[in-house]
């Protein structure tokens, strides 16, 4: 029973907002491309969903436009550029690398740099290990232990 449940769960794809099958492109390959593009674009109405996931009217219109463009032979980049021309970089869920997003994209490197600096500094300041005992001290130590 539970094995069948697992099979069904695995068969069930992720739920998309495409509620109307008429929205889908007949060509499976083109449809997958359109979905991949839609997943990279922000729904301007709900903002934290992609166009592909949103039920908003505008998202539906934009999904339709993506599919029209894909069928007309646009490349992925051309479709995204079309959206950016109207809604700005904000429409891209993955922000581009530019002066404005420098800190955003650079933050892993900055964090790594801060960490490395902290490690280096704490190592440098660690007290140097004591010098090995001189023969005289060694003799005195043995004498104390043996006593």
């Amino acid at each position, binding site marked *: 029973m539970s094995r069948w449940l697992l099979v069904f769960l695995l068969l069930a794809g992720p739920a998309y907002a495409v509620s109307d099958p008429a929205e889908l492109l007949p060509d499976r390959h083109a449809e997958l491309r359109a979905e991949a593009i839609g997943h990279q674009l922000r729904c*301007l*109405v709900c*903002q934290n969903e992609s166009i592909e996931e949103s039920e908003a*009217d*505008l998202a539906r*219109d*934009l999904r339709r*436009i993506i599919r029209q463009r894909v069928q007309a032979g646009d490349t992925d980049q051309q479709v995204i550029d079309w959206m*950016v*021309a*109207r*809604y*700005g*970089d*904000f429409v891209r869920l993955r922000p581009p690398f530019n002066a404005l997003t420098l800190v955003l994209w650079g933050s892993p490197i900055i964090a790594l740099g801060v960490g490395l600096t*902290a490690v280096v*500094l*704490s190592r440098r*300041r660690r007290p140097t290990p004591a010098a090995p005992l001189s023969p005289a001290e060694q003799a005195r130590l043995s004498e104390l232990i043996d006593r």
Partner: protein
Amino acid sequence: MISRRALLLAPLGMATLTGISFWMLLDRMRTGKFDPHAVPNPLIGQRLPDFSLPGQPPSPGFSAADITASGRPALVNFFASWCLPCVAEAPQLMALRRAGIPVWGIAYKDPPEATAAFLARNGYPYTRVARDEPGRVAIDFGVYGVPETYLIDKTGIIRWRWAGALTEDVIEQQLQPLLRQYS
């Protein structure tokens, strides 16, 4: 043991810095200088998109060329009868009309009868009203909700966009200086 103290103080310093930044952010949100939901419009400074739309009877339709033909700055206002902020901004649009500023209305995704009833109820501030039932021209403007208002200068360049209801404050503080600048 200065380094150990520094290591203990560093997180405290970071937390303080984060706290101050967060407080500044909230303060800017409170005073209206920062809106995290605002969608910046890349069309500011660009020519208004080319379009031609049918009219809402009895008004004839209009095109981008009609807006620039007047040779003076004009507003393009996207609205719909199903939109509450559109009712709220109606008095402001009427005031702009009285001040002699051309306002070109575009009814967004709205059946003609609903638009007609809306205009009869809330007043008619428009030079002309066109219909964009598919909402396709709105997308070319970068509209993501109604109402949205665009300022087009006399050469046809988009100078300003306001998403949401126009209030007296917005008109006085943002629109009026721009109207003076571009007229």
